[in-house]
């Protein structure tokens, strides 16, 4: 009996082109769009758009602006000779992420510790607050690596002013050294004064930031559409009630329990195929390492599909009409997906919303997928997400069975 229900569901889906497209094509399309957006927005490939106005225009400030133009992390916008007001306008419009004004009425660049206004003014849009420290870092780097003579000269002046007075010979040696530094910098020699030697980098999660983002959104989009397609499939029980098919079946030896089980089986299989399509596309188009993680992916996908099937069947069997079920499902899925990280990663959310996310199947499924494809964690770290998903599915299925009994006899 369960097999007959399963077969009816499969054939109905195969014959319904619109449902097929909604189930398998649309999610894949969504994933490709999200992947294209976020694989190019990983931070490493992002260039900070900067509008620069140089009110001073002397040799030192020109060298600094030139060094910033050469920085691959920055993209100068608005042209070469901007007035301060133009810089402010470009930032306000969003054309520039951040602005930099080299002030004329301030301490000079080669003088540290003065009491006047700072020589550099950063113009920021509060929405893009992260751009400020990024620009500060790049300016400091340029200051020390492209203008080492200026930077160290001002440090020497500061030391001489506050700690020790150099004699003439020492001052001459320092002046020669600073001149050498300037020459080397102008010749493009690698300068230790950018302090790059302080740092080494070790990546501990995934293959690359772009890949991690793609893997994340494969899971995020998959779970979002898994919920939608599961509800769509489960709602067939209401259609069968309205069309008399349930009456026919239950008048004979048919039982609601078998019908619910058949539908649950179909929804799990449909979910696995649907998520499979998305990850296979992620593998083919974006090199998501699916072949290297098939067993863990499979268990996660089955667990997520079980959870979605349970939830969808509860919605379908608690509601009396198709419209009621669709409305409830749409609202519930959008809320679950927003809180659960299917729309925006949870680490962008405030702590309270992050905590609420643990109540959603999206979060547990995404925890598992990111653990597999992003953090490359062992199976033991996946036990909790798997358990939570399966428990959600089993509880949902149990509630659905209880609700289904009222259709059987009244």
């Amino acid at each position: 009996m369960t097999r007959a229900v399963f077969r009816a569901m499969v054939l109905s889906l195969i014959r319904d082109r619109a449902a097929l497209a909604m189930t398998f094509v649309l999610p894949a399309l969504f994933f490709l769009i999200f992947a294209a957006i976020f694989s190019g927005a990983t931070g490493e490939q992002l260039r900070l758009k900067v509008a620069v106005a140089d009110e001073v225009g002397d040799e030192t400030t020109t060298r600094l602006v030139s060094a910033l133009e050469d920085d691959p992390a920055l993209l100068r916008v608005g042209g070469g000779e901007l007035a301060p007001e133009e810089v402010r306008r470009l930032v306000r419009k969003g054309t520039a992420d951040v602005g930099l004004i080299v002030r004329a009425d301030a301490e000079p660049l080669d003088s540290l510790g003065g009491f006047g206004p700072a020589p550099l003014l950063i113009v920021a849009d509060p929405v893009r607050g992260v751009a400020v420290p990024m620009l500060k870092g790049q300016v400091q780097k340029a200051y020390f690596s492209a203008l080492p003579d200026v930077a160290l000269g001002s440090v020497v002046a500061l030391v001489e002013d506050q700690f020790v007075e150099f004699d003439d010979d020492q001052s001459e040696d320092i002046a020669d050294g600073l001149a050498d530094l300037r020459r080397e910098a102008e010749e493009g020699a690698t300068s230790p004064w950018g302090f790059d030697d302080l740092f080494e980098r070790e990546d501990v999660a995934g293959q690359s930031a772009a890949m991690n983002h793609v893997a994340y959104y494969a899971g995020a989009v998959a779970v979002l559409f898994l919920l939608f397609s599961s509800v769509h499939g489960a709602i067939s029980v209401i259609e069968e009630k309205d069309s008399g098919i349930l009456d026919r079946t239950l008048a004979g030896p048919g039982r609601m329990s078998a019908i619910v089980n058949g539908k649950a089986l179909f929804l799990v299989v449909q979910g696995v195929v649907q998520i499979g399509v998305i990850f296979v596309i992620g593998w083919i188009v974006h090199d998501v390492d699916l072949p290297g993680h098939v067993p863990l992916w499979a268990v996660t996908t089955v667990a997520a599909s079980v959870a979605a099937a349970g939830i969808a069947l509860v919605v379908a069997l608690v509601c009396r009409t198709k419209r009621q079920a669709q409305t409830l499902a749409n609202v519930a899925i959008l809320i679950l997906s927003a809180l659960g990280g299917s729309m925006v990663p949870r680490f962008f959310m405030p702590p309270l919303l992050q905590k609420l996310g643990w109540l959603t199947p999206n979060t547990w499924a995404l925890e598992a997928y990111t653990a597999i494809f992003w953090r490359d964690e062992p199976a033991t770290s996946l036990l909790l997400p798997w358990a939570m998903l399966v428990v959600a599915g089993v509880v949902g299925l149990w509630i659905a069975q209880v609700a289904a009994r009222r259709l059987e006899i009244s």
Partner: protein
Amino acid sequence: MSASDSDSGSAGPSSPASQSVLEVRGARRSFGEREALCGVDLDLVPGSIYGLLGPNGAGKTTLLRSICGRLSLDSGTVRLSGENPVGNPEVRRSLGFVPQEIALYPDLTARENLEIFGGLTGLSRSEARETAGRLLTRIQLAQRAGDPVHTLSGGMKRRLNIAAGVVHRPSVLLLDEPTVGVDPSAREGLHDLLRELRNDGLAILLTTHDLDQAAELADVIGVLIDGRIHAQGSLDELLRQVFDGGKEVVVTLGEEPTAAARSRLLEDGFEPTRLGDVWTGRLRGKLSDLSAIGGQLEEAGLAVAEVRVREPSLRGVFFHFAGRDIDR
């Protein structure tokens, strides 16, 4: 069949209850204050069609749902081959049900539908496939077996709808208004199919408010009004019970009779009833009785707009028990 709550009490069974494959005894069911079934008794024997005739709201669907075990009774019993079908799927294996709606999967082919309903009733894949092929030939849809249901004509869908109810070879088939919205030629085809199924030995309970269908198809007709079976028997038995070999005389009055006139007319077996703008009533008896009524009408000063004399019909039987036409 046996009758209970019959106003005459004379409509006895034409087949012994011991042959019944379906027995309903004293079935009562209320929804709040409203009594949907008021002690219904009914027997169904193999190889017969029972036409349960009743207007909308008479309790037909409630009775069918009770027989299917989908609705618990407040009191009374339903026995299917001697067993209670409520909560007993194995007993219900001998029951087939054809809802009023086209209860089929519209995107699946005719064959797939029959195979799936076979599977839903516990047939193995091979049994379902073999039975589906046989039934498709029988309902003359073998040529369209591979077509999706939504491409079939209304009559074809109705035939398939019935076939899906018998795919597991039940001994009792319940049909809820099986020809609603069907054109006359398709309807004739459906009647032929039902007769064939009856001749195969199937016991068929057919609910309808179509008098012609009941008269044409049913071996036994039960008149269900307001949850009560007022009479049951063959068409001849019902006509004899109501008209006693006489004619049906329909008198239409030209004006509304006074209460006193109505009371006097009632003594002569004529109860005028308002039907829209006119008052009409039926008489059973001989043509000669007309003169007595004519005298009463004259004495009451009532104008007669029309007098029709015709052979007794099921419409008259229903009017006799319900005091109104079935479609009103």
